[in-house]
């Protein structure tokens, strides 16, 4: 869990901060065209909690953690360490994969909570300090329209994304064949497939809620 969560923390926070900031900037300038610039706070809050928080965190973690898992398990596979586990009467799936699965599924929602907070804060900073919005109004707008389901759907997505990343990455690593090249291929496939799976499942989970 430390590996998945703590080490991914900086990457996720930077992603969240800049996403929130650019979102605020884009919304403001875009909405200004039809006079809706007061809605920026709401837009940032809803977008971040529902979509950008979970999805971007998921993608960042899939790149960082997914590739590491695939590489680690892939290397073990091609150096016969997984065979060695069998010969020592240990089931490699229980020993290697289950812990990674649980760690990722639990840690991802936690990361997303932090990402949401930082994202919203980023939006606040840009709006208030740079674009000159009124802090009180902006803050009120942020919270007024935010519903429990926005946050919850985001966290549920994160939970699923965590499971997806772990399953796909571990499977790729576990079935790597053929030396260093095989490990490299497994790592690439892990990241690409996890990312796609995240984006696709994102749509379907969203449909469930809204």
């Amino acid at each position: 869990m430390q590996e998945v969560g703590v080490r991914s923390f900086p990457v996720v926070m930077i992603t969240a901060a800049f996403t929130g900031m650019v979102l605020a900037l884009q919304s403001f300038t875009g909405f200004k065209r039809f006079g809706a610039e007061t809605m920026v706070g709401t837009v940032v809050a809803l977008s971040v909690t529902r979509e950008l928080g979970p999805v971007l965190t998921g993608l960042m973690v899939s790149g960082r953690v997914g590739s590491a898992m695939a590489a680690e398990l892939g290397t073990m596979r091609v150096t016969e360490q997984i065979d060695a586990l069998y010969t020592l009467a240990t089931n490699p799936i229980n020993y290697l994969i289950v812990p990674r699965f649980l760690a990722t599924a639990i840690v991802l929602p936690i990361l997303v909570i932090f990402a949401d907070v930082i994202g919203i804060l980023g939006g606040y900073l840009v709006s208030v300090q740079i674009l000159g919005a009124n802090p009180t109004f902006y803050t009120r707008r942020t919270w007024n329209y935010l519903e429990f389901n926005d946050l919850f759907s985001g966290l549920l997505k994160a939970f699923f994304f965590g499971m997806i990343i772990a399953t796909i990455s571990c499977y790729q690593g576990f079935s790597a064949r053929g030396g260093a090249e095989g490990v490299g291929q497994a790592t690439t496939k892990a990241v690409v497939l996890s990312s796609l799976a995240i984006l696709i499942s994102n749509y379907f989970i969203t449909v469930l809620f809204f």
Partner: protein
Amino acid sequence: MGRESTIKINAVNLHKSFGGNNVLRGVNLEVREGESMVVIGGSGSGKTVLIKCIIGLVRPDEGEIYVDGLGISSLNERRMNEVRKKFGMLFQWGALFDSMTVWENVGFGLRYQKNLGTGEIKEIASEKLALVGLKNVEDLMPADLSGGMRKRVSLARAIAIEPEILLYDEPTTGIDPIMADAINELIIQMKEKLQVTSIAITHDMKSAYKIGDRIAMLYQGEIIEVGTPEEIKRSPNPIIQQFIEGKSEGPIKMVDPSLLIIPSRHTRHEER
């Protein structure tokens, strides 16, 4: 003559193919309790597949393997795991777990099988490491070790659970001659001190003669002959002779002979 020995491992009519490649084509091999059996054969002859079938890492397409009389090829994973506790295996490149220290590697089988405390496990690990001639390496990582040391740690890990059967996948390959002989000696000691049944696969004939009570040759997916080192040395079979003498010419064709004809500069001059 006529001493009754139990058959510890019996491979009967094993067939295994990968893709279109028929690796094992009806292998029959009997290994008696307490004996040291060496399986020799060329690269790619299926020696590793055979040994992996014996420990259940690979399921044969046809045929059966009996360990202490129990057929193992259709056991479920849980029961297979129980059978595996009788085995220790030394992999060709060690297959040590690189995220763990040496003593954690050696003690791995103990931790997950017999519920001992950490202190006790470390002690037993040190003991086994001493048996293979290693001291003060307990806290090193596998990456810090030389090839010979890695093999010995791997051997210590295989014997830590005091198995009845030891499998050696190319124990002396890739090791300098002095270390190779040290490993041969260790294998003999394991047999004498621990009274294990062992199966080693190798193409190192010096090692095979030294450690084997009997030697079996695997050729084109079948065991073509089994005998004591003396019997094998005197075998009339040309295939065996070519292999044990290490000659590139003979009935075993590893290299297409027509590829070995290289046009000389002399003939090229003539063409001009």
